[in-house]
């Protein structure tokens, strides 16, 4: 596959809720190392678009291509490539941060590497809180576990829903470093955010869903 061919491509996607059209005619192509920042007002379908790209929902129209071949919801090729960080944290309150991360990495078919998990938790400054049940953690700390998960994930395609929510300045710095490493490694990122994503401007592509509304 030549370097310039798109890793992830969307062709005239549309989403409907009931009879209402959330968006239509959404097309983009992302090559390795690219970021797509999805913006738009509340209710314009940002989360719906991300769920489609993750393979959780089928588009009402259009198609999604991964590495040049069309993929369908729950496609095994998507499930091998995507790390989906949705607005739900997927944290088990009963389990500690370490146990949550170990469960995720083994779920993704990787071996749970406890030293790697410790390093990832140190990186997001949760090393001292890693052995208490997640229910005792603050909202921002819970988001940081999600960052640690990204640090551990070797997936090429990251799909992030509002990654900056509840993160403080240090948290944003960690996210910036993670995004840079992912993009330098040839990965791609699709993120919905109301704030500016901390990535280099030349990598950034913008998609404003408000423009794709009722076209």
């Amino acid at each position, binding site marked *: 596959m030549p370097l310039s061919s798109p890793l992830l491509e969307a062709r005239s996607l549309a989403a409907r809720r009931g009879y209402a059209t959330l968006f239509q005619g959404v097309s983009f192509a992302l090559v390795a190392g690219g970021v797509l920042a999805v913006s738009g007002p509340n209710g314009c379908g940002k989360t719906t678009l991300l769920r489609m790209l993750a393979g*959780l929902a089928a588009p009402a129209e259009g198609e999604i291509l991964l590495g040049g071949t069309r993929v369908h*919801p*729950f496609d*095994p090729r998507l*499930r*091998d490539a995507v790390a989906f960080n*949705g607005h*739900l944290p997927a944290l088990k309150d009963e389990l500690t941060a370490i146990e949550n991360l170990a469960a995720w990495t083994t779920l993704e078919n990787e071996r749970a590497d406890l030293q790697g998990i410790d390093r990832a938790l140190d990186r997001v400054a949760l090393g001292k809180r890693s052995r208490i049940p997640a229910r005792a953690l603050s909202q921002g700390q819970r988001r940081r576990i999600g960052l640690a998960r990204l640090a551990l994930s070797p997936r090429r395609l990251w799909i992030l829903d509002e990654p900056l929510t509840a993160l403080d300045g240090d948290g944003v710095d960690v996210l910036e470093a993670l995004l840079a490493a992912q993009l330098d490694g040839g990965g791609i990122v699709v993120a919905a955010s109301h704030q500016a994503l901390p990535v280099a401007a030349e990598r950034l592509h913008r998609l404003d869903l408000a423009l794709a509304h009722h076209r």
Partner: protein
Amino acid sequence: MSEATTTAAAPDAASVSAAFGWALARDLRIALRSKAELGVQLMFYVIVVSLFPLATSPSREVLATLGPGVLWTAALLASLLSLPRLFSADFSDGTLEQIALSPRPLPALVSGKMAAHWLTTGLPVAVLAPVLGGQYAMDGTELGILAAALLLGTPILSLLGAIGAALTLGARGGGSLLALLVLPLYAPVLIFGAGAVDALRAGMSAGPQLSLLAAGLLLALVAAPFAVATAVRIALD
């Protein structure tokens, strides 16, 4: 890397058992961290079974007639009580999305969850039943047959119940809808399960009832994982 193992064709045995083990271990660990919930279900079972002798009659004949039916009905209700928990927590915190998006085979993952559900609800009920059956003037053989029938029948309750729990995910009033959906499906299990002890008392063998329960269990074991996996994907869409 693992593309070959996750296609619709046929995941290999190793990846199926790894996925099953992953979900089983995780759900058991979570269940052990929230022991109070488990205790509530078992106490519910004990209390419902113990209410009938108080409410009806102390006569041995009446109690012996009621016994198997009461123990089975209470087992059904205890199973129903714990069903909403099976998927709804994972659904509302986003874990179910991650499970469905993982490269591991989804039918094997949900099978692990169903096995954990049975181990934490059905198995204790089957083990407690012979103890509680003492209140109903049942003799040793009858209690043995009752426990055997429950051991064969309660996994069916978990498997059928999981289909209902997955189908009602995200529905408003899911709990009562679940009862309406699942209780009629439980009826055959109840009939053959309670019938096993009745057959013994009528001087016949309980073999046919136990065989039918075992056949039902095999059928549910084969069909339920795929039905649940499909229902989960529909619920997430």
